[in-house]
């Protein structure tokens, strides 16, 4: 599903964020992306999402070359990918329902499709009763559930989560990980950048470890780090 071939990314200010990265992620996988801040995790995600272009190398998504997409094809790529952020990025003046519906509105779905689909997704993430509530009235874990609902509402083939539990306590984090696991078990590929050592070590998923812009370790059923 995702293929990187010798991808490097050098920002205009000279920072070398990715250095000759070659990696493949297959459909249906659950992959943790670990490593210290500044190791290149975000740049890797941004290239998949076509927010940044690689300076060198090729990146493919669903056998399509991301680097060769035309400007108007970028929205179509992004509709196949659900994004979950550490800071949620919900619209504060819209209700939970409207926030999730917004993702469908943006892609031009009909009002009926939105009314049918959104409650389904909200109950899937366990927020059936919170549809009319404003995000500010929700706990962090609940807000992240809204963000997940928004990410899956358009049936994406891939979910990219950038430190989704970074602002949450351990119990809440585990609840969310179960939710991600559930989504993954239905066939959606998940790529998750994280610093949550316990979660990575317990879940026994594929782990890509990055240091200094390179992938330094790639293990099935891996752990957060080999030290200790």
């Amino acid at each position: 599903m995702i293929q990187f071939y010798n991808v490097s990314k050098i920002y205009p200010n000279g920072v070398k964020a990715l250095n000759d990265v070659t990696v493949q992620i297959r459909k249906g996988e659950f992959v943790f992306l670990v490593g210290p801040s500044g190791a290149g995790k975000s740049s890797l995600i941004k290239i998949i999402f076509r927010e940044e272009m690689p300076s060198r190398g090729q990146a493919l998504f669903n056998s399509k070359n991301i680097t060769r997409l035309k400007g108007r094809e970028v929205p179509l790529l992004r509709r196949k990918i659900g994004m979950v952020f550490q800071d949620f990025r919900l619209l504060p003046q819209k209700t939970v329902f409207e926030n999730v519906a917004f993702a469908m509105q943006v892609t031009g779905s009909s009002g009926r499709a939105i009314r049918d689909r959104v409650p389904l997704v909200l109950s899937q993430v366990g927020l059936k009763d919170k549809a009319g509530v404003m995000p500010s009235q929700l706990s962090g874990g609940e807000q992240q559930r809204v963000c997940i609902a928004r990410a899956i509402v358009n049936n994406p083939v891939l979910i990219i989560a950038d430190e989704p539990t970074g602002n949450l306590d351990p119990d809440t984090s585990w609840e969310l990980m179960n939710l991600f696991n559930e989504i993954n078990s239905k066939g959606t590929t998940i790529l998750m950048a994280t610093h949550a050592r316990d979660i990575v070590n317990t879940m026994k998923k594929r782990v890509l470890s990055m240091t200094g812009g390179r992938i330094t370790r790639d293990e099935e059923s891996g752990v957060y780090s080999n030290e200790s």
Partner: protein
Amino acid sequence: MRKAGFTAMNLSTLSYYWREAFSSMFRNAWLSLASVGTVTISLLILGISLLLVMNAQAFTRSLESGVEIRLFLDSGLSRVDVRDMERELKKTPGIATVEFISREEALEEMKKNLGDRQDILEGLEEENPLPDAFRVKAEKADNVPALAAELEEMKGVDQINYGRGMVEKLLAVIKWVRLAGGGLIIVLGVAALLLISTTIRLSLFARRKEIGIMKYLGATNWFVRFPFLLEGMILGFTGAVIASAMIYLGYISLVNRLDEVLPFVTLVTDRDTLLVVIGGLLGLGVVVGILGSAFSIRKFLKV
């Protein structure tokens, strides 16, 4: 089935565009008002100068058909001389019509003009002091001064008479109205454009996070852009409607008042001309609004 879904999609997207445009307009109510006001003032001035120029032009056109040059002839010319002169005048370029007026006819005309007081002229039939004359009409008012100068040199012409000064002044006034109106319109048009683009920029800035999220969710640029273009268009159009209404009502009442006070001054009032002016103003308002917001949007779309 599929078609119904397609229509529904457009409807929901369309209603989304309008809701967004209006809510953002009311969020920056004061700036929206300022934009509308600037558009109104610019278009008001544009409309007024347009009407001024149009009326001035209609006036010159009526003058053009009215301005005539009188050639008073030397006394003692023979009939043959006069006929030769008439033939020569008719060949001169720039002349529309030539008419000979004998001294007898001239006296009759003068009597008619005096009406009740024609007793002043009594006894003049015996010794008519008036000369024979040609009444020449030029094809264009602009040519009258030059033509008059040329004809004055003609053999057999004693004196020449036309609305000297009047024609030149009128032409100069029209030129100035056009220049000043044009300059003002450009300045105010730019001001309106800038204000609308500032209004849109502010609402864009207030919503840049939202725009970022929209782009993350896979919104096309057009989806993001459209509500803002719509907002600019509504602002421009509203200003244009106000300006058009003011100009229309003001002009109609001016025409009516003038009709009472100065019945011999006729203004352009035909429906088609006024419709063209009003339609032009409305169209311009919309264009200014759309351009103004288009300027601002470009850089906010790079996510």
